């Protein structure tokens, strides 16, 4: 790719930002141009964009790295591409988030690379089974979204509640396990994948505009709503609902006090007794079935589930809400025991992860890439416009495996990357009162 191409990209993006007239987008434009400029600059000096004829390429060919993580980003396509580009063999294991957390904390030799969410990192990094990464060894470090560096997508974003990634993204020194208040040279996780979650609705069945989290408690939807029965996430959605109802004001939704938990659960129990909920779902496919069968018209949902309902030809909208999104994010980190060639290979792999191909792959699934600017080069202008800039698709939008996900003319729910990630109200987290919360949650389910 030539330098001219870079320039085109830059022009393209500034034009895109110019299109939006409201203040928010103008602000986000500034941040974006900065990122795009960095890409241009980097393209001069490094071969990062053209491929990987790197110094280690010969040595690391036969290295095998064991990576485990939650299902979302443990994608075989990524392992195959890594083999092709770097020669590294990745052995992927998918586990649920609790099991991942336990493995990281208690079986440090069972993995080389941990693919974990930031709230898991908050719990497990202090256990000392992982090593911090030297950001100077990552060529693509400066392309990581500022969301993961200082928590601000744009210079004057407010920082969301919960375990915001940047708060656990750095430690004070090479061997430290104490999270740093400011970005340092030592990073705990390199972000890989993240998204903003909200309520999914059946626009054909709700019969009125949905604008707030509290709409799920509308008596008009009695017996036609659902929330997810995974305590750690369900309680956050519940908090968004209760705060929107004006019943509770939380100091930090990501770390509630016992009193706040009690009040939240009491509201949920009352709603359940009134028959507000049709069902609770635990797995992705359950939420898809509830929505597509019409059992439920409004519920907490994950973005790929919305896509799955739409793929059946059923209208489903990932409704942006006034109070904002509940966001989550994950990253990959290194096991403490890695050293020598394996460590070099791991660095190489992580740098490759940020270099664009993976990012484009994730963007096409409706998630976000941690280094947006690099992934742009691996996406068509139309794809970039649809997934990231929130523009209407010019042609059909295809999923990574080639299926039509959206027809020409479609616009992404919630709009652009900056509209969605700029409106995060809280991040997934784990509370100090976790044990108490889970007991109360069980009480709610059994009530």
């Amino acid at each position: 790719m030539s330098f001219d191409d870079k320039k085109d990209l830059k022009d393209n993006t500034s034009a895109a930002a110019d299109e939006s007239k409201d203040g928010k987008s103008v602000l986000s434009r500034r941040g974006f141009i900065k990122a795009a400029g960095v890409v241009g600059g980097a393209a001069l000096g490094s071969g990062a964009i053209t491929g990987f004829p790197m110094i280690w390429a010969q040595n690391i060919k036969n290295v095998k790295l064991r990576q485990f993580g939650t299902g979302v980003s443990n994608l075989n396509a990524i392992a195959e591409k890594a083999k092709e580009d770097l020669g590294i063999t990745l052995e992927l294991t998918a586990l649920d988030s609790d099991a991942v957390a336990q493995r990281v904390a208690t079986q440090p030799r069972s993995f080389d690379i941990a693919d974990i969410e930031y709230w898991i990192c908050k719990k497990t990094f202090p256990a000392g089974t992982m090593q911090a990464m030297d950001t100077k060894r990552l060529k693509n470090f400066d392309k990581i979204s500022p969301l993961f560096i200082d928590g601000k997508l744009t210079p004057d974003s407010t920082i969301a509640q919960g375990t915001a990634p940047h708060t656990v993204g750095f430690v004070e020194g090479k061997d430290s396990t104490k999270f740093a208040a400011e970005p340092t040279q030592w990073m705990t996780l390199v972000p890989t994948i993240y998204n903003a979650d909200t309520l999914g609705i059946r626009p054909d069945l709700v019969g009125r505009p949905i604008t707030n989290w509290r709409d799920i408690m509308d008596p008009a939807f009695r017996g036609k709503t659902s929330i997810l029965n995974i305590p750690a996430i369900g309680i956050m959605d519940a908090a968004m609902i209760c705060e929107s109802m004006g019943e509770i004001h939380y100091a930090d939704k990501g770390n509630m006090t016992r009193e706040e938990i009690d009040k939240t659960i009491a509201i949920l129990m009352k709603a359940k007794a009134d028959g507000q909920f049709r069902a609770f779902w635990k797995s992705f496919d359950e939420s898809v079935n509830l929505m597509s069968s019409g059992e439920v018209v409004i519920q907490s949902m994950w973005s790929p589930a919305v896509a799955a309902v739409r793929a059946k030809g059923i209208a489903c909208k990932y409704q942006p809400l006034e109070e904002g999104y509940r966001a989550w994010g994950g990253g990959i980190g290194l096991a403490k025991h890695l050293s020598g060639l394996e460590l070099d290979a791991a660095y190489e792999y992580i740098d490759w992860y940020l270099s664009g191909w993976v990012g484009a792959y994730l963007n096409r699934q409706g998630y976000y890439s941690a280094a947006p600017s690099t992934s742009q080069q691996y996406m068509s202008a139309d794809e970039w416009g649809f997934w990231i800039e929130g523009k209407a698709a010019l042609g059909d939008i295809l999923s990574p495996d080639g299926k039509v996900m959206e027809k020409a003319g479609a616009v992404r729910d919630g709009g652009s990357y900056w509209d969605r990630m700029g409106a995060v109200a809280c991040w997934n987290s784990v509370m100090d009162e976790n044990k108490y919360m889970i007991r109360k949650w069980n009480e709610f389910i059994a009530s």
Partner: protein
Amino acid sequence: MDADAELTGMYSQRVPESDTPPGPARHPHLTRRDTLIRYLTANPSYLQVTPLALVILLFLLFPVLTILIVSFWDYDAYRLIPDLILENYEFLLTSPVTLKAYLKTFFYAATTWAITLVLGFTVAYYLAFHIRSSLLQGMLFVLCTLPFLTSNIIRMISWIPLLGRNGLVNSTLLELKLIDAPIEWLLYSDFAVVLAFVHLYTLFMVVPIFNSMMRIDRNLIEASIDAGASGLQTIFQVVVPLCRSGIAIGSIFVVTLVMGDFITVGIMSGGLSASVGVLIRNEISLLQYPAAAAGAVVLLTTVLIMLGILFRFINIKKEL
């Protein structure tokens, strides 16, 4: 390896004096083995019982003991901490959630038991007494077991499109103008849970009852009719008492299966209600193994007590 240890243990307890060999020339190891072999040839029943004893030891006693031990341990988010605390039990036995879950579980167990008993008895009775040709009898019996060739999760999930708000049942009733609005309680309700249980477990009642019925001497039925008993009297005063062991075995199957279930309750109630099994499962998925172990121990005790009561009324061993 366990077998050797066990047998050596047995041997050394019974004949301790041969542990010290009389002469220096004899190898002590050989002596022990010789005596052991002699002992076993004299009492072959120990050898015969060894495989089963080992299986029970390894796959039943050992796990149950582990669960019992772990139930006294402490835990935090990511670790099990060996300890001896009563907090797990204290919370479990005083929490209103436990009480609710147990009441719910008993309700499911009792309703399912009653319905499967009536259904199972009727089906078995029909097979045993109304079908005369033993070929047809065999074929119908196989037919009963046919659904069991698919996984029980699939059999359960297939109810969902049938019972849903826009499911087959509701749309048929609406079409026939029998109802004005879809019936909501068909799915994600106690009704749905019990329906699925009955569907899944009726066969466990049919088989043992059918088995008992086939052993009933037909002359007894004739005698009862000759003595002037009505059809119902014959059933309740002759057939039912003679089927007691079959009913008891079927009941054990159904009750224990329902008491320990979590998948059926989870799926068919749409996560809206919690049985004891669901609570234990929740704790396991959150890695709270000690709490889950305490829950399992209490559940096991409850089921054992229930079986104890059952055995007081029916002596299965005698009637088999």
